[in-house]
């Protein structure tokens, strides 16, 4: 089946084309769209499973050569090839699997939207690109997917383009990604000029021999790649786009901005792990950036009211964890968290979507125009939406790190790895500290979210309350599956301490071997330290959750209109540290001003056009005018000129 892995790309692509065609010609054919959209995904998932089974049987990567993409020279000969190995297959399964669920959910969620077909076209296209990213055998091929998912993200964030803010958000997302892509591109140039190859296999094979460990070049390459990751995976300093990206339909947030695309950065770091392994300094940067992101995003999440915004910052924060992991050299932990996060965060988003769906329909039914996403308008929804509530609670506990659930294991492994890396550099200890603090906050804000949404009484008015109801089965169905996965996802890499076999670790081993070879092996804490850490983690989860529920439910929650203006730290948090404003004021605004006033009006139109071009024309014309003024019509003047000329000519010929 592995040699047909290209089908997983082709199927969504065909789906996108078909849906796109329907969007243009038969927008009302929603049934057909509902069939094609999720259908191709499910088919792809089936292929993926087949492929995975085959990959499981071998430790070698399977290369599928499709065609030659850029046959430039023998040095630069880029094939459009796919690489199926144990890493990509994990992602393949996650993408197609979670993707299928979200596609199914979308059938219900988007049912009444006029852009139904277009939506599925974009979504299918996204999956295709995501799979190219994951399966690409070389950096340029992955880059197709890398940018392609950016494109789809752009299209889907701006899906409801008639609201200016949505279009803005889409553009912002793409631009932030592009800044990162700049890094990836330059990294590719450097890699090619130093290693002479862009294939992952080639990089794995040659990097260690060519690049000195800890050398500037390796560090620069790794940092440039990481710049790409900060863009794609919304890390400091490029994280600002992700919260805005919530402007898109909620399933999109679940698929793209939680489960798959945003984790591509983590994937890339693992994929090019060799290069990072060669650059310990870059690893430190990755880890500390991840930790800082985890921490700061979590603090912002504490004070958000929009249900999706909370989840968005939570995503940013969780992505930070993943980078903390890979920065610590715990590749598997990163991937592990990636997978579990995909389960529970998708679940959370879909649950939120379900809530929003309900709120929206209820508002719609009574003609209210309140914000369907503001948690202050919610409350007590568990009665109306029991299934959603239950499933979201599972996810909340998972993300908060309640023992036994998937998030607990992955997060714990990350923190333990960071702690273990503390031997090498105190940076990791700082990172670990930040991670722990972030964990506490995660539990807190998730509890706050659940409390504000599902507990207490409904604050949006009785009339609306009457119209609230649980989502249809096509939406809750995927939720249930994800809930199950969130529950048991931890089994994938169950640590030894609870009797697990670290299956994922072993599964990925062949892929990670070249990178691990260069790293000092991680000495995860054992014995007392391990138990202490575990206990601490459990304590943090419990304390956070408790605090969250208590503090939220302990005092009345005002409606949006009644909320007093925040002050001090709260204002800073609610204003998201004003990073957006900072970028706008310090970079975007001045750049636009500079381009317009200095470059265009100033240089282009004034210096070049007016002074240089028109100026020389004027000068010529002025000289001509002067000459014509001298032509006074007076014979005396003419003969005088003549005489001057005569004297000069004579002088030239006879001197004197």
């Amino acid at each position: 089946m592995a040699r047909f892995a290209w089908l997983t790309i082709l199927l969504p692509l065909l789906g996108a084309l078909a849906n796109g065609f329907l969007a243009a010609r038969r927008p009302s054919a929603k049934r057909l769209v509902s069939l094609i959209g999720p259908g191709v995904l499910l088919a792809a998932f089936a292929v993926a499973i087949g492929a995975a089974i085959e990959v499981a049987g071998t430790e070698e990567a399977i290369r599928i050569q499709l065609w030659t993409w850029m046959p430039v020279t023998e040095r630069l000969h880029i094939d459009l090839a796919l690489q199926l190995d144990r890493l990509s297959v994990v992602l393949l399964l996650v993408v197609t699997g979670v993707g299928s669920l979200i596609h199914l959910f979308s059938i219900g969620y988007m049912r009444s939207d006029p852009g139904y077909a277009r939506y599925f076209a974009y979504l299918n296209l996204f999956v295709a690109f995501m799979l190219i990213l994951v399966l690409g055998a070389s950096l340029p091929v992955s880059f197709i997917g890398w940018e392609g998912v950016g494109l789809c993200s752009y299209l889907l964030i701006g899906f409801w383009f008639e609201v200016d803010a949505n279009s803005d958000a889409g553009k912002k997302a793409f631009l932030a990604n592009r800044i990162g892509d700049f890094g990836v591109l330059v990294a590719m140039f450097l890699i090619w000029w130093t290693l002479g190859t862009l294939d992952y296999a080639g990089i794995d094979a040659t990097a260690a021999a060519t690049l000195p460990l800890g050398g500037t070049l390796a560090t620069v390459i790794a940092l440039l790649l990481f710049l790409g990751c900060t863009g794609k995976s919304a890390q400091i300093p490029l994280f600002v786009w992700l919260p805005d990206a919530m402007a898109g339909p909620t399933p999109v947030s679940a698929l793209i901005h939680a489960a798959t695309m945003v984790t591509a950065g983590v994937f890339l770091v693992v994929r090019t792990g060799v290069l990072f392994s060669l650059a310990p300094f870059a690893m430190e940067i990755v880890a500390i950036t991840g930790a800082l992101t985890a921490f700061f995003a979590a603090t912002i999440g504490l004070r958000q009211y929009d249900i999706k915004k909370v989840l968005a910052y939570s995503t940013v924060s969780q992505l930070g964890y993943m980078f903390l992991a890979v920065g610590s050299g715990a590749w598997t932990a990163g991937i592990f968290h990636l997978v579990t996060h995909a389960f529970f965060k998708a679940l959370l988003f879909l649950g939120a979507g379900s809530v929003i769906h309900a709120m929206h329909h209820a508002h719609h039914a009574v003609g209210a125009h309140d914000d369907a996403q503001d948690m202050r308008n919610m409350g007590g929804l568990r009665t109306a939406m029991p299934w959603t509530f239950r499933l979201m609670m599972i996810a909340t506990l998972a993300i908060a790190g309640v023992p036994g659930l998937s998030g607990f294991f992955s997060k714990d492994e990350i923190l333990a790895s960071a702690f273990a890396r503390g031997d090498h550099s105190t940076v990791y200890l700082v990172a670990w500290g930040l991670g722990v603090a972030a964990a506490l906050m995660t539990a807190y804000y998730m509890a706050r979210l659940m409390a504000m949404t599902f507990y207490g009484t409904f604050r949006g008015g009785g009339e609306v309350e009457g119209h609230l109801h649980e989502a249809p089965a096509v939406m809750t169905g995927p939720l249930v599956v994800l809930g199950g996965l969130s529950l048991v996802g931890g089994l994938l890499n169950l640590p030894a301490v609870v009797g697990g076999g670290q299956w994922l670790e072993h599964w990925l081993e062949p892929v990670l071997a070249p990178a691990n070879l260069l790293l000092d092996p991680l000495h995860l804490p054992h014995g007392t330290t391990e138990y202490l850490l575990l206990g601490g983690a459990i304590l943090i989860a419990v304390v956070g959750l408790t605090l969250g529920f208590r503090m939220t439910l302990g005092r009345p929650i005002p409606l949006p209109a009644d909320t007093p203006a925040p002050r001090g730290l709260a204002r800073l948090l609610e204003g998201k540290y004003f990073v957006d404003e900072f970028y706008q004021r310090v970079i975007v605004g001045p750049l636009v001003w500079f381009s317009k006033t200095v470059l265009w009006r100033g240089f282009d139109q004034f210096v070049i056009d007016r002074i240089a071009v028109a100026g020389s024309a004027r000068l010529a014309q002025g000289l001509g005018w002067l000459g014509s003024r001298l032509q006074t019509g007076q014979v005396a003047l003419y003969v005088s000129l003549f005489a001057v000329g005569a004297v000069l000519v004579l002088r030239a010929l006879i001197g004197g």
Partner: protein
Amino acid sequence: MDVVQIVFWCFAGWAILSALLCVTRANPISSALWLVSTMFSLAGIFILLHAEFIAAIQVLVYAGAVMVLFLFVIMLLNLEETPRDWNRWMFWLAGAGLSILLAAQLVALRGYSPQRLANEFSSMPSPDPGLVFPEGAVARQAVEARGVVGALAEPLFQGYLIPFEITSILLLAAVIGAVVLSKKRL
């Protein structure tokens, strides 16, 4: 300095003086008459230079006919003395200056003598001008043999026949032109 030279310089001085007056007199009739005077003095110089026939027609044709035509037109147009326009002092200054420069350049030719011409003409050291320029000697012989007019007429109607014929075209054109331009009605 022999007599010829003294006479030459008298004529020359007279010519230059008359020319200056011709140029500077405000009244066009005075100018014209001073020009006639210059021409007479030049005729004198021509005689000194053994060009008697030229001297004669200088007086007859030039001073006589052409200048009379000038005077005739001046009087026909009843041109009065134009008052000096002192605003044009710049032109005067420039004109005078330029002419002096020009004169200075051309007066450099004063150093020429037949000997120098011969030196420059021939590659031999200090050759005899008479030998270098045989035409001069031939001409002198011709003058002795056939007189001035004959010596001039022979080449004019033989070697220079074509130019001579061209002058007829020239005069034809001039006549037509003068007539066309002065006709009352076209």
